[in-house]
């Protein structure tokens, strides 16, 4: 026994979409078979007739409302009509059609371009998307007028050069690809340390190189204006130093910058010459820091050369001259170690820290095998297997594929530490520990038990030396980290070069002045 009700409200206007929504909601009420709230247009009246509702069309017109309900019984029909009225009265809100989110909230932007479009005040893109998606993100960001800090790697050198030319043409910085560190206006990007502002401007084709120099300056009480990362390949022949040259122009014009440090692994000689000339053109004293075994390029007036990061930092901290002794941090000279002869095994997170230490060791011992060798003939056959004096960069692409950077996930290096400690050939294990933004929240806490274990296993025949790259202001707490490492039995310095000298001394090799 179904019951039908038809009611008319003269002169009652609701938009057709509201009416469709209310009709649908009414049809979902218990006991309701059919429900309709419609304007009395001829088309609608015909539709109602199809549904079996008889409406006396009479004088009805489009501004009259017809309510129709068919329900299981009279009571349900009456209840449904009441509901329809209530829904119409409160139709301003309520659930929608099921289309759309209904939240009224604009979803987060899905591209840098979209974000920049929404907020024109954005000025810097921080990019760490997978490498195969990198190119169009970089192109889009530059086109949107954003400076780019690009942690990801994945552009071939020709493409990198093309995008860097775009950036330079637009007056933008493209820091990267493969840029680990920058500090812009006091804000650290990627892996960066909490160092104070000051007069030293840095341009670096190496993330950990920038970290090392800024931290050594911090130790020496000197601050930096900006540290502009340019990515590991900027000084390659293909890229030609496009961003380094651009960054030098910017720092030349920056009043806060008084002197310049330019950091790179050994660059292409032709590019090195360009950079040296550009450094001279700034009119500010500059030092080129190219750790490794390479020769300096011809140096114009006002441009110095430092064969190590340590020497470059000393130059910058000393106001543009290299103080005698070279070292900048008195605390980086622990007591002379007990000698534990054997091979030096350097296990590094930072590529340039590895290079810096390796160069110190190689000058004394000659061949040092590595996955990032100083000389191509010193390349490790297998990065997982040491050969004599061996230095491994765990941040190298081949070892980070499919995993986080070792500064965040030290698992692979931890495992290698255990193996090196168990290797009777090993005399000294040399580790870097990098603090700062982006790094592990407590690397010393993670490493200390492993060092203790290694020293226990080595049973007096093993030394562990740590190069602690950190600043006093770093979130991990520099002093606490150093103390934890020392308590575990490690010899701790704040400089990679000093750590290398300490390792030589501990292995009983060469002069080894720490």
């Amino acid at each position: 026994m179904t019951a039908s009700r038809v009611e008319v409200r003269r002169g009652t206007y609701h938009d057709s979409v509201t009416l469709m929504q209310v009709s649908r909601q009414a049809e979902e009420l218990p006991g309701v078979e059919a429900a309709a709230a419609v304007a009395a247009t001829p088309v609608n009246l015909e539709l109602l007739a199809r549904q079996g509702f008889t409406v006396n069309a009479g004088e009805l017109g489009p501004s009259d409302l017809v309510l129709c309900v068919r329900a299981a019984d009279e009571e349900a029909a009456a209840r449904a009509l009441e509901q329809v009225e209530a829904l119409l009265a409160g139709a301003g809100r309520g659930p929608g059609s099921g289309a759309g989110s209904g939240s009224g909230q604009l979803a987060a932007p899905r591209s840098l371009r979209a974000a920049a479009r929404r907020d024109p005040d954005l000025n810097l893109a921080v990019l760490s998307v997978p490498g195969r998606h990198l190119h169009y993100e970089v192109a889009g960001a530059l086109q949107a007028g954003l400076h780019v800090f690009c942690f990801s790697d994945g552009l071939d050198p020709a493409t990198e050069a093309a995008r860097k030319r775009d950036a330079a043409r637009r007056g933008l910085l493209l820091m990267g690809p493969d840029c680990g560190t920058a500090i812009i206006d006091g804000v650290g990007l990627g892996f960066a340390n909490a160092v104070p502002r000051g007069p030293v401007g840095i341009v670096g084709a190496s993330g950990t190189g920038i970290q090392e120099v800024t931290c050594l300056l911090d130790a020496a009480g000197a601050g930096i204006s900006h540290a502009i990362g340019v990515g590991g390949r900027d000084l390659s022949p293909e890229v030609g130093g496009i961003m380094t040259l651009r960054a030098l122009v910017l720092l030349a014009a920056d009043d806060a910058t008084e002197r310049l440090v330019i950091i790179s692994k050994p660059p292409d000689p032709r590019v090195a010459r360009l950079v040296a000339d550009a450094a001279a053109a700034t009119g500010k004293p500059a030092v080129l820091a190219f750790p490794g075994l390479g020769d300096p390029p011809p140096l114009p007036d006002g441009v110095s050369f430092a064969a190590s990061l340590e020497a470059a930092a000393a130059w910058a901290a000393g106001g543009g001259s290299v103080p005698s002794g070279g070292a900048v941090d008195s605390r980086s000279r622990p007591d002379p170690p007990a000698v534990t002869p054997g091979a030096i095994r350097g296990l590094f997170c930072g590529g340039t820290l590895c290079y810096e230490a390796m160069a110190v060791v190689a000058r004394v011992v000659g061949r040092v095998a590595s996955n990032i060798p100083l000389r191509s003939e010193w390349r490790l056959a297998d990065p997982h297997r040491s050969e004599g004096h061996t230095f491994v960069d765990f941040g190298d692409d081949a070892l980070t594929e499919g995993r986080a950077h070792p500064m965040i996930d030290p698992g692979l290096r931890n495992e290698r530490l255990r193996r090196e400690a168990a290797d009777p050939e090993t005399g000294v294990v040399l580790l870097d520990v990098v603090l700062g933004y982006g790094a592990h929240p407590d690397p010393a806490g993670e490493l200390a038990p492993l060092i203790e274990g290694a020293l226990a296993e080595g049973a007096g025949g093993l030394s562990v030396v740590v190069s602690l790259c950190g600043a006093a202001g770093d979130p991990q707490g520099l002093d606490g980290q150093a103390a934890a490492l020392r308590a575990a039995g490690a010899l701790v310095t704040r400089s990679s070069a000093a750590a290398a000298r300490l390792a030589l001394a501990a292995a009983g090799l060469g002069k080894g002045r720490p």
Partner: protein
Amino acid sequence: MSGLLGRPVRAVNAGVELFAGEVERQGAEVTRVEWRPPAGAEEALERLAGRAEETAAANDRAVAAMQAAEPRVVGIGRAGDLVPDLDERTLLHAGPPIGWTDMCGPLRGAIIGAAVHEGIAADPDDAVRLAERGGLRFAPCHDHGAVGPMAGVVSASMPVWLVENGDRGNRAVCTLNEGLGRVLRYGAYDVQVLDRLAWMRDVLARVLAAALARLPEPLDLRAMIAQALQMGDEGHNRNRAGTSLLLRALLPALLTVDEPTADVVAAAQFISGNDHFFLNLAMAAGKATADAAAGTAGASIVTAMARNGTEFGIRLAGTGDRWFTGPAGVVDGLYLPGFGPEDANRDIGDSTITETIGIGGMAMAAAPAIVRFVGGSPEDAVAATLAMYDITWAESAAYQLPALGFRGTPLGIDCREVVHTGVLPTVNTGIAHKDPGVGQVGAGLVEPPMEAFVAATRALAGSAERMEAAPISSRAPGGGDA
């Protein structure tokens, strides 16, 4: 430089959350991109990234052509006279090309009705036989400078609005809107439908043509759409303001035309009784506007979106007349009493030309009355429009949104960005019954198929490379003087 050193860092992060958090920890503001891999065509996007500057210049040209478009109503004429190559046996239809066997119910119904209306077929059965043995030619409206709502069938004797784009002079035509209910564009072909088509051809078109001829200057559709958007229309699913403005513009002329009063009254009543009468004009304006950008080499801007009830097709400025298609979607919407999703045909019609020029679903923020399509509140409508700026190249200079402080509507859908962000254009549309002749059963939102945009992006990347290769090969034969 556009400032970085010496200005506060305002960062936007895409990728590892750690880096965003660490920048924030240092007191700098960070906006987060909800990054995800593109919806496809990864290699094409990579290749196009290498041409970003050239594409930008092409897109600027394409969008400038749309911005400059001044669609005006030149008159009303017979489709067969105005549309090139539209002979008596050719029927135009909405969307990308399709054959009889793949046509959905409403499109077949409209074809049948048009064939009978033209007198090509004696009756509906005859029309079906004719279609089945290849006695009718079918072609997309878009391929003939036309657009048609829903089934969009245009035959030679039908009257069409003729719209011309200002000084550029490219033309577009669209049929006259039949009203709601049982109408040809929803696939109905009974006597009532055919009688109405005949009346529109014999009376309505004549009266309107006479009225248009008396106007001091051609109707400026750009101005009319702009006003309608500020009166609560979005130009696709709501055309009440546009229809009212049209009638207001025509009224003085209608009162003075030299036509039988009964005909003039009938015409006026017909327009007054149909909120969507203006839609077909908005569509012709859309076609004339979008066509101005068509053929811009290298541009990634969408110049047509159209559905035939089976497939949804798009065209790009940079890839000429090629269609890129995917299955037409099912409209997520609200239904008229007595109907539900099971009755719905797949998405159909050329009316998405409105979204193509930045109105319709792209301009939901303009139409508070139909916000329930996008979630229920005016805020939802604003959010729906704001999201569209993420995938469009520019903002309309002509069409503005009061709810967004008179910001221009999102204009120029960039197919690269659709694929890149996974955000599809918002299309809001009517729903046809899947059986011919039942008519409209609802309205709502529909998603275009992503694969169409993926395919278009791939083709654009390919065509861009061919363009680069061309000068080399053209040098080869003649030798030349370098």
